[in-house]
């Protein structure tokens, strides 16, 4: 078996006559928690969309758990979704039922535990949820699928600092040890303790992919390391 869960080779993506990602090469192994860092507009979300099979028409190869075909790749990936496909009057229970029917890998028992942990009630409607509550629901739904790769795109931006800490500290409990989680976020400080690797996207490509322990061994914090990547003032 290949040691890489995620393999990206020579990935280039253009949209609206602009190059968004250029010649990306990346290998991520099993059982890791990885931070995907970069400025706004660096291409983090696009990279996540390509991995999950949402963004199309790219050049290069993307494989998750050995699966290159988009349909097969989607079954290997669980990504935070803004739930825009649901009517605002949809109840959490109804969304849970939708996930249960649509995703054969959805663990209903785990979702119920996560929902309680996030202090969400099943009869709450989407329109009743604040931004933070909605993000909690998105995280709960994402982590309730049993897949090898989780992609969390800025999952904590609307969640209050206390709850954020609680969620981040318990992520390890909800994740299968063999599964990998890629978290794209600006709150570097709060996720450093759980990180195994750091990927920095800069100038439309992967500027750095390094083990968190190597950064720590150099006497730097992950935040310092990330800031040092932008000492020249950033890409744009």
């Amino acid at each position, binding site marked *: 078996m290949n040691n890489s869960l995620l393999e990206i080779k020579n990935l280039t993506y253009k949209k609206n006559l602009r190059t968004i990602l250029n010649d990306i090469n990346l290998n991520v192994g099993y059982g890791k928690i990885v931070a995907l860092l970069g400025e706004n507009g660096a291409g983090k979300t696009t990279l996540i969309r390509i991995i999950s099979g949402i963004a*199309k*028409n790219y050049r290069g190869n993307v494989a998750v758990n050995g699966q290159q075909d*988009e*349909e*097969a790749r989607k*079954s290997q990936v669980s990504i935070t979704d803004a739930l*825009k*496909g649901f009517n605002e009057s949809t109840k959490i229970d109804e969304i849970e039922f939708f996930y249960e*029917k649509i*995703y054969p890998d959805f663990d209903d028992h785990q979702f119920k535990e996560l929902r309680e942990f996030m202090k969400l009630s099943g009869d709450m409607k989407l329109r009743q949820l604040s931004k933070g509550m909605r993000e909690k629901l998105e995280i709960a739904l994402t982590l309730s699928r049993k897949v090898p790769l989780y992609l969390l795109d800025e999952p904590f931006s609307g969640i209050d600092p206390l709850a954020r800490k609680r969620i981040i500290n318990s992520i390890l409990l909800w994740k299968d040890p063999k599964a990998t989680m890629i978290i794209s976020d600006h709150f570097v400080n709060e996720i450093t303790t759980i990180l195994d690797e750091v990927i920095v996207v800069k100038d439309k490509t992967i500027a750095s992919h390094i083990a968190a322990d190597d950064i720590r061994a150099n006497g730097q914090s992950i935040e310092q390391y990330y800031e040092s990547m932008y000492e020249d003032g950033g890409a744009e």
Partner: protein
Amino acid sequence: MTSFKNLFARMSKAKMRNIYLLVLIQLVSSLLITIWSLITSSGFRGDAGLLSWFIIVMTLMPFIDIAYVFISTWQNEKEFDSQTWRLIPISSTKFYIANISSAIVNGLYLVVLQLAMGIVAFLPAVFDHNIRFNVWQISNAVGKEVSGGNYWAKFFEAFPIGILLSEFIAFLLFAFLIYSIVATIDLSSKTILDFLPERHSKIFRAIIIIVLVFVLLIASGNVMNMLYQMDPAHVMTGEIRSYSSVWFTNFYLLIFSLIFSGINIWLLAKYHESK
């Protein structure tokens, strides 16, 4: 992988909300119009008053059905655009078929509900002696024919089952074609937009849609001319009403639906991105 059956069931359920809303609108508006017309004595007099609700329900039916075509078309495109739906691990072909067919099946369900509403709306007419007598006469005549053993023979003579079936299929294929054409215009305009600069995207999109509609109109005109030339007896085009003419129409509806669907599935698989 998600099964087609599960995806179809979820998509149907998502569209069902609009069906009930439309039925409710038809029910309430037909009741209001009936009450208003009876109070103001405009239109319905005497025995006709008992049939007024039924007549108004039936009159509103095509308008509600047209509204459903617009709403379901919009909803189909919304699902093609939605990340929630497009993240589902299923092939683009199955995704496309589930989306379009759920809209068609829901449309049939709407018609069934409307017919049921029609039956309920007819009930007040049973209070009228003349109408009751007419209904009794018809059922009596049907009963005699059935007991005589030649009812079904006469029924199928008046309504040939083959023609009925082929016209029902023509209706389904026509709905399939309409949804497919709208999806082709929507998906291809959005795809073309991805290859143009981001600025003025709304204006660009409007221009692209106008051009695409124009091209489709010219192309369909040319194709119809070609069909007429290939068919001097006008059998295929339906001017001579026959069993074969309906099936030829169905054949062409199917071919065009498959062409547009093929384009749509290709766009969904290779280019179109959800938001």
